[in-house]
């Protein structure tokens, strides 16, 4: 029996130790990780308005707070899925279709008329653009616009991010964003180039 006594002590100590080490580690990572925010504090949302654009209104710098938020509008699964919801709610599909364009430009052909940066997209949505893109600043709050912009970037991404939204419970006309539809559809053949996108290289 003496040979068996080792089972009583160290075995369970080891298990408890491992458990606590794992939970401790998790708590440490959890502390670093950004929690899901449902309420955007008014000062933060005011700060999110402060984008700076180049004089030609293409590209620029996002406000500091965008980095303080850990760029959640581009990388957070929750924010991206909210963006996807707004894409339907605010009627984006009526001009841009499922992302492949319609009377408005496509998001998946690699042509970003005003540049692919978040600030450009936010600015396009908030302030509108010539040739028919209306301004949404009186229809959406600024954090909603950021969420929608992040989602629109994810439609056109050639490499799917892990947190990109999946399919909707609806008729699906193209692969969902988490499967990098832009890349798939690009391989199937070039999308029609609109005349206003300039000459082919």
């Amino acid at each position: 029996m003496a040979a068996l006594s080792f089972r009583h002590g160290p075995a369970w100590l080891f298990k408890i130790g491992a458990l606590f080490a794992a939970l401790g580690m998790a708590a440490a990572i959890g502390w670093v990780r950004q929690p899901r925010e449902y309420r955007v504090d008014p000062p933060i949302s005011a700060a999110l308005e402060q984008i700076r654009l180049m004089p030609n209104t293409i590209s620029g710098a996002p406000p500091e707070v965008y980095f303080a938020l850990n760029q959640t509008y581009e990388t957070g699964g929750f924010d991206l899925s909210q963006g996807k919801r707004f894409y339907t709610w605010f009627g984006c599909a009526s001009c841009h279709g499922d992302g492949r364009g319609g009377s408005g430009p496509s998001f998946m052909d690699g042509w970003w008329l005003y540049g692919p940066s978040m600030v450009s997209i936010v600015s396009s949505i908030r302030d509108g653009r010539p040739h028919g893109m209306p301004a949404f600043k009186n229809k959406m709050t600024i954090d909603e616009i950021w969420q929608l912009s992040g989602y629109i970037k994810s439609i056109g991404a050639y490499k799917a991010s892990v947190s990109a939204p999946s399919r909707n419970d609806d008729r699906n006309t193209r692969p969902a964003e988490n499967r990098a539809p832009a890349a798939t559809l690009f391989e199937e053949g070039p999308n029609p180039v609109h005349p206003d996108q300039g000459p082919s290289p």
Partner: protein
Amino acid sequence: MKTSRFLFPLLVLLSGCSGGVQSALNAQGHSAVALKDLIIFIVLVCTAVWLAVVLVMAWALMRRHKRQEGEAAERKMTIAVSVAIVMTVLIVGVLTFASFLTTRSLYSGTDATVTIRVRAQQWWWQFIYDNADPSIAFQTANEFHIPVGKDVRLQLEAVDVIHSFWVPSLAGKQDNIPGRENVLTLRADKPGVYRGQCAEFCGLQHSHMAFLVVAEEEADYQRWAAQQRQAAVQPVSAEAAAGRDVFMSKPCAACHTVRGTQASGTSGPDLTHVGSRSTIAAGLLETTRGSLAAWIADPQTLKPGNNMPIVPLTSDELRQISAYMEGLK
């Protein structure tokens, strides 16, 4: 043992109609009354069975032992167990039959005079009074009226996830499931305001997805319906008129409809007659100017995670919008 401790409150509970506005025991509708009768019957039978088991157990533990061994004792035991098994089968049969009879009585009402489409969504209720004549159709949110004593047909639909429509005082629950259409027939026997609540877990604000059913006499109901068909009233005070302008120029109008104005959003509740409803935010707050202001100022603190954003407003704008909302009778 402590049998009486558990039994006593049970009997008290069943004898009186306690439990308030949202209780299966406060039955005020045709179905709910039948269900309450069934509930009382089954609970009484089951309580009796449970008592019998516990008493036999107590007796077995406490009896003085004159242990009879052998065939006779064994045979007695076998007879007792057999009788118990037969009794179980009988009781189960009776309960099944009673349940079946109640089910039949519930489904009998089919000549509904009013049909309402109930569209459940995260986290509010849309009630559409459809009509072939679109000028008579109208919709409301989180509160609907029905005529007393009439069968009302509810078509239950879900916009996003599964919800469950439940007004315990009027009828049992029925689920709203995407891609399916369920039908529930209600009949209120007495005028009154009955509270209902979503009963299937539907996400963050499942807890705050209540609604009110107002059952009223036919004349009152017709008056209400006529008033609901009207477009929104024009604001009378300067403050409310200013509030209307703020409402139209801010994101509010993109999600909400106020019939008779250019506000025609559909992702939020129809606000045409919001001032005439007794609660806002799906039963969360009583409709007063103060609660309207609190809700509009910070919906994400009152109902975290719901789909209404915090719209930046000055305090003047907030006051004006609240006045406008309150005036939308």
